[in-house]
C-alpha cells in the first residue's frame, strides 16, 4: 500500500513525537533503578554539584540566619570541627548546621529507618523494616518524650536550636540545588528536621544496642534439647572463670530473683516463634542487637605513669562509611566539650570536658522480654490478662512505597507491648514484646548533664535517670579518680524465666527495675583499675537476674585480656594504652593452645600436621594478619566446637538451618565458655561423647578437630602450613551505609578475631552465611585521655564528610588501621595548626 505524502508526514511527525515523549519521560521521571535523568545529570543542578561540594573547605564567612551572635568554626586538617559560640543556643544551632552540611544523607536515612519511612524512597525491599519499626514504635516513644518536656526545659531549647541549624542548612542546599547526590538519585527532598527526629535517631541507637531475640532462641533450644540440657549448655551464669568489674559485695536484693516456672514450650508457641523469626530475618542488620563488643578501662595512682588518671575507650559497632561518629569540640558560656557526636543528636556521646572524661560499652543485659499472650477466636483482638479479657490497642498506618500502592499496616498493643509480627494474630497464642527501649527516657538530658559534670558525684547524678540502652560508663577525672557505673533500666519480673517467652496472663509481668544504688558500679577501687568489655559486669552471687550467657553477655575473653594486661604492670603511659587497644592477642588461645599442643605431642601426626603443631608451639597467641598459627587456631576452635556439639544438634534436630543464630560456631558464646571450662577442668564431660556413640574425651575430640583443620586449610590455602596467613582467610570491610560495594572500604586482609581487643568478628569458615565472611564490626572510635599530661588522642575508621569524593570521606582509615591516633586539640591549638580552616557564621 502506497501512502500519500501527507500521511507519511503525519506518521513521521507522530513517530518523532513518540520518541521525543519517551526521551522526555526518562528525563523527567524515574524508570526502574534509574533516577529522572534530566534532573539528575544536569550539570549545574544534578548529581554533579557534589563534585564542587567535595572540594576542601576554605576560609569564608557564611550567612547563618537564626544565630544570636557570630560563631567561629575551625576545621582541623582531618576535618574535626571546633565550634566557638558566644551563646549556648548558637553552639547547638551550629552543631545542627555542621551535621547537615556533612551528613545529611545519613541523618535522613537514620530518621527514616526509625520512623518506618524507608519504603517511601527505597520501595518494597524496605517494607519489612518499616513494618517492624512501626510495630516497635520508636516514633511513638519519641513523640511521648517530646511532649513530656516542659516548655522551659533546657533540653527542649537545645533540640529546637539544633533543628533550626539543620533546617538552615537544608534550606540553603535546596535553594542552591546542592543537596547530596543521593537525594537527586532517589528523587526526593528531605523534609524539615524536628526535635522528634532527634529523639527517633536516639531510639535507633537504643534499638541497635538493646533489642535482642534471646528468648526466642532459648525457646527453640529448649524445644529441641529439652530444658535441662539447654540450660546446662546455655546457662544463666557463666561456667568459666570471669572478671566482672564489680565483684561485690552486693546489697541484698529488694525483690527476689525470679524462679523458673515454665520448663516446656508448647507447639503453638513454637509456631508463633517460627513465624516471628521468619519475619525478623527480613530486617536490616542494625535492626537487632548482634554482638557489640566494646572496651573501656581506666587506671590511676601507681598504675598510671603520670600518677593521675588514664582512661581508654573503644566502642565497637558496625563500621560504616560514613561512620556513625562526627567528631566535634564545642565551647560556649555553658559548655566546653570534645568528642564524638552522632549526626542527628546535638551533643557528644563519648569524650571529655575540662574536668572529666567518659566512654561506654554495652552492658548487654536482657532488655527485651517476650510474652505469650492468651488469645481466643471468641474474643477477637483481645487478650487475657490479670483474670479478664482486655481489648488490644489498635493503631493503623499507611506506609508509602516507592513504585507501588501504599501498604496498610495494623499494629496491636497489649499491656506488655506490640504484638509481633505485625498484621498477624495467631489463634490461641500471640507473641508480644516488652522492650525497654520503648520506655520514654531522659537520656538526652543525661548526656547534657554529663557534659557539665566535674566530679564522680555529678557524673553519677547525671546518669541516675538513664534508661536505655544500659551502658557501662567508664569515668576518669583531673583529680586522679576513676570509676565505672552501669545505669539503665534492668527489668525485674514477678516470676518465671525471663530468658524464655513468659506467660502474658499477668503473673510474669515486669514489676520494676534494679535500684540505681544496686546497679553495677565501682569508684576508685583499691587495685587502681576498672574495665568493661561486655562481660557479665557482676559476679555470680549478684542478687538480681540480669541476663544469660547466650547473646546477653559476651563470653568475657576481652575482659580477661584487659584484666591480664592491666593487672600485670604499673606505670602505664598513653602509648601502652594504644598498644592494648590495638592488641590482637586471643585470650582463649592462651588457655587452650597449651592443652592442645600437649595432646598433639602424644599423637601420630603426618608431615603437615607436624608442621602445624610446630607453628602452634612457637605462637604468641596474636591473631596477626600474617600469622599462620592464627589460621590453625581459629579453624581448630571452630572444628572443636562443631565436633563436640554438632552430633547433638543433629540428633535433637536443633533448627539451625532455619535460625542461623543457632548454628554451632564461636558466636554461640555459651558454647565457647562450656568448651573452655571442660577442656581445662572436665576433660571427660559426657557431652564429648555423641548420642549413641562410643565414649570420647576432650583429647580425642581435640585431635580429631586438629586433623580436620589441617586438612581443611590444606585444601583452602595450599599444602604448606607456613603459608596459611590469617589475613588470607580473615578480612575486614567498612561497609558503605548505602550497602554499595563501590563506596565501601575493603575487604582487606586483617588481624584480630571475635574476642581480641582489636575485635574483628567474622566467620571466614562459614559456607552457610557468606555475609559474615568479612568482619564488618569493630572499634568504631578509639580514644585515650591522660589527665596527668593533659593529653587526649583519638581516631575513627572513616572521615567527617559523607561525600565520597571529599578528602574527608575515609581519610582517617589508614591511621586507624595502623594503630595510630590524632591528638584531640583544643580550639586554640586547632586554629594554629597549619592547614586549618576558619568559618565565620554570621546572622
Amino acid at each position, binding site marked *: 500500500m502506497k501512502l500519500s505524502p501527507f500521511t507519511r508526514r503525519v506518521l513521521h511527525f507522530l513517530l518523532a*513525537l513518540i520518541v521525543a515523549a519517551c526521551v522526555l519521560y526518562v528525563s523527567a521521571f524515574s524508570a526502574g533503578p534509574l533516577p529522572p535523568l534530566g534532573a539528575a*545529570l544536569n550539570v549545574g543542578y544534578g548529581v554533579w554539584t557534589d563534585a564542587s561540594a567535595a572540594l576542601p573547605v576554605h576560609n569564608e564567612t557564611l550567612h547563618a540566619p537564626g544565630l544570636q551572635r557570630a560563631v567561629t568554626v575551625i576545621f582541623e586538617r582531618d576535618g574535626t570541627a571546633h565550634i566557638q559560640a558566644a551563646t549556648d543556643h548558637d553552639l547547638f544551632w551550629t552543631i545542627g548546621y555542621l551535621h547537615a552540611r556533612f551528613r545529611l544523607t545519613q541523618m535522613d536515612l537514620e530518621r527514616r529507618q526509625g520512623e518506618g519511612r524507608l519504603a517511601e524512597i527505597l520501595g518494597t525491599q524496605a517494607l519489612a523494616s518499616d513494618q517492624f519499626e512501626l510495630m516497635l514504635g520508636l516514633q511513638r516513644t519519641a513523640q511521648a518524650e517530646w511532649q513530656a518536656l516542659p516548655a522551659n526545659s533546657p533540653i527542649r531549647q537545645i533540640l529546637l536550636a539544633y533543628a533550626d541549624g539543620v533546617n538552615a542548612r537544608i534550606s540553603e542546599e535546596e535553594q542552591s540545588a546542592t543537596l547530596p547526590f543521593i537525594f537527586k538519585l532517589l528523587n526526593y527532598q528531605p523534609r524539615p528536621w524536628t526535635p522528634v527526629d532527634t529523639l527517633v535517631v536516639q531510639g535507633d541507637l537504643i534499638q541497635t544496642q538493646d533489642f535482642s531475640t534471646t528468648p526466642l532462641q532459648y525457646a527453640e533450644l529448649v524445644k529441641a534439647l529439652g530444658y535441662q540440657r539447654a540450660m546446662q549448655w546455655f546457662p544463666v551464669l557463666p561456667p568459666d572463670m570471669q572478671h566482672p568489674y564489680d565483684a561485690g559485695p552486693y546489697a541484698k536484693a529488694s525483690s527476689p530473683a525470679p524462679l523458673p516456672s515454665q520448663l516446656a514450650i508448647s507447639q503453638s508457641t513454637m509456631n508463633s516463634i517460627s513465624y516471628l523469626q521468619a519475619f525478623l530475618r527480613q530486617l536490616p542488620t542494625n535492626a537487632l542487637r548482634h554482638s557489640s563488643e566494646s572496651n573501656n578501662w581506666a587506671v590511676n595512682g601507681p598504675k598510671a605513669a603520670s600518677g593521675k588518671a588514664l582512661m581508654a575507650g573503644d566502642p565497637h559497632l558496625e563500621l560504616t562509611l560514613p561512620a556513625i561518629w562526627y567528631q566535634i569540640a564545642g565551647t560556649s558560656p555553658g559548655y566546653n566539650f570534645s568528642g564524638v557526636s552522632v549526626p542527628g543528636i546535638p551533643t557528644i556521646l563519648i569524650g571529655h570536658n575540662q574536668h572529666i572524661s567518659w566512654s561506654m560499652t554495652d552492658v548487654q543485659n536482657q532488655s527485651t522480654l517476650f510474652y505469650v499472650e492468651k488469645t481466643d477466636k471468641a474474643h477477637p483482638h483481645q487478650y487475657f490478662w490479670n483474670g479478664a479479657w482486655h481489648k488490644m490497642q489498635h493503631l493503623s498506618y499507611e506506609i508509602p512505597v516507592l513504585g507501588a500502592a501504599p501498604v496498610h499496616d495494623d499494629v496491636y498493643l497489649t499491656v506488655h507491648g506490640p504484638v509481633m509480627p505485625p498484621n498477624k494474630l495467631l489463634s490461641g497464642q500471640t507473641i508480644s514484646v516488652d522492650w525497654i527501649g520503648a520506655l520514654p527516657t531522659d537520656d538526652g538530658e543525661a548526656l547534657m548533664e554529663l557534659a557539665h559534670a566535674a566530679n564522680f558525684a555529678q557524673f553519677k547524678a547525671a546518669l541516675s535517670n538513664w534508661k536505655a540502652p544500659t551502658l557501662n560508663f567508664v569515668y576518669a577525672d583531673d583529680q586522679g579518680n576513676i570509676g565505672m557505673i552501669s545505669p539503665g533500666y534492668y527489668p525485674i519480673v514477678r516470676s518465671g524465666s525471663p530468658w524464655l517467652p513468659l506467660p502474658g496472663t499477668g503473673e510474669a509481668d515486669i514489676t520494676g527495675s534494679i535500684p540505681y544504688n544496686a546497679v553495677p558500679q565501682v569508684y576508685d577501687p583499691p587495685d587502681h583499675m576498672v574495665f568493661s568489655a561486655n562481660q557479665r559486669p557482676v559476679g555470680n552471687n549478684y542478687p538480681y537476674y540480669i541476663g544469660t550467657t547466650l547473646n546477653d553477655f559476651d563470653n568475657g575473653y576481652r575482659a580477661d585480656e584487659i584484666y591480664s594486661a592491666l593487672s600485670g604492670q604499673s606505670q602505664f603511659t598513653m602509648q601502652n594504652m594504644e598498644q592494648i587497644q590495638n592488641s590482637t592477642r586471643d585470650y582463649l588461645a592462651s588457655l587452650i593452645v597449651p592443652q592442645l599442643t600437649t595432646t598433639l605431642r602424644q599423637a601420630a601426626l603426618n608431615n603437615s600436621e607436624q608442621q602445624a603443631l610446630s607453628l602452634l608451639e612457637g605462637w604468641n597467641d596474636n591473631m596477626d594478619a600474617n600469622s599462620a598459627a592464627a589460621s590453625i587456631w581459629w579453624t581448630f576452635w571452630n572444628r572443636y566446637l562443631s565436633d563436640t556439639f554438632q552430633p547433638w544438634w543433629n540428633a535433637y534436630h536443633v533448627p539451625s538451618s532455619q535460625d542461623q543464630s543457632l548454628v554451632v560456631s564461636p558466636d554461640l558464646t555459651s558454647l565457647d565458655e562450656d568448651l573452655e571450662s571442660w577442656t581445662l577442668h572436665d576433660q571427660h564431660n559426657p557431652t564429648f561423647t555423641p548420642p549413641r556413640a562410643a565414649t570420647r574425651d576432650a583429647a580425642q575430640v581435640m585431635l580429631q578437630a586438629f586433623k580436620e583443620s589441617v586438612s581443611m586449610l590444606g585444601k583452602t590455602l595450599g599444602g604448606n602450613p607456613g603459608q596459611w596467613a590469617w589475613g588470607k582467610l580473615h578480612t575486614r570491610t567498612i561497609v558503605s551505609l548505602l550497602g554499595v560495594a563501590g563506596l565501601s572500604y575493603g575487604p582487606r586482609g586483617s588481624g584480630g578475631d571475635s574476642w581480641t581487643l582489636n575485635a574483628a568478628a567474622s566467620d571466614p569458615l562459614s559456607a552457610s552465611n557468606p555475609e559474615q565472611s568479612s568482619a564488618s564490626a569493630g572499634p568504631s572510635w578509639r580514644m585515650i585521655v591522660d589527665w596527668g599530661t593533659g593529653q587526649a588522642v583519638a581516631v575513627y575508621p572513616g572521615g567527617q564528610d559523607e561525600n565520597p569524593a571529599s578528602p574527608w570521606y575515609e581519610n582517617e582509615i589508614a591511621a586507624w588501621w595502623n594503630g595510630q591516633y590524632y591528638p584531640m586539640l583544643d580550639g586554640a591549638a586547632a586554629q594554629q595548626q597549619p592547614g586549618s580552616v576558619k568559618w565565620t557564621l554570621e546572622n
Partner: protein
Amino acid sequence: MRTFGFYLMIGSTGLALTWLGVQSGWWWLTPIAGLLIGLLLRPARLAILIALVVGALGWGLPLAILAFSAPIGQIAAAVESVIGLTSSGGAVIIVLTVVLGGVLSVVGAWVGIAGRGLAATG
C-alpha cells in the same frame, strides 16, 4: 539560501539556551533548543547534526570545565555504584550525561523538522 552566519547564529543561540538550562536546572530547555534548530535549519540532516553538537556541547562543556576544579570522576563512579552499574570508574555516567544532552537536543530537532514538514504539506 541560508548563510553560514545564520547557521552559526542559530547554533550559538541553541547552545546558549542549552547552557542556560544546564546551569539553571532547566534541562527541558535542551529539547526546546533542538526544536528551534529543527524548525529553522535545513537540510534536515544538517539540522540534526547541529542539534547533536549543540546538545552534547551544552552538557559536556560545563562538565569539562567543572572537571578542572572538582573531582567529577569520583562522583560519577559513586553514582555508577549506587545505581548498580558495572564499575567503569565513572566513565559511563560522564558519557551518559553528554549523550543525554545530545539526545534531548536531537529529539527536539526531529520534532521540529517533522512539524515543519507537516506544516509545509498542510
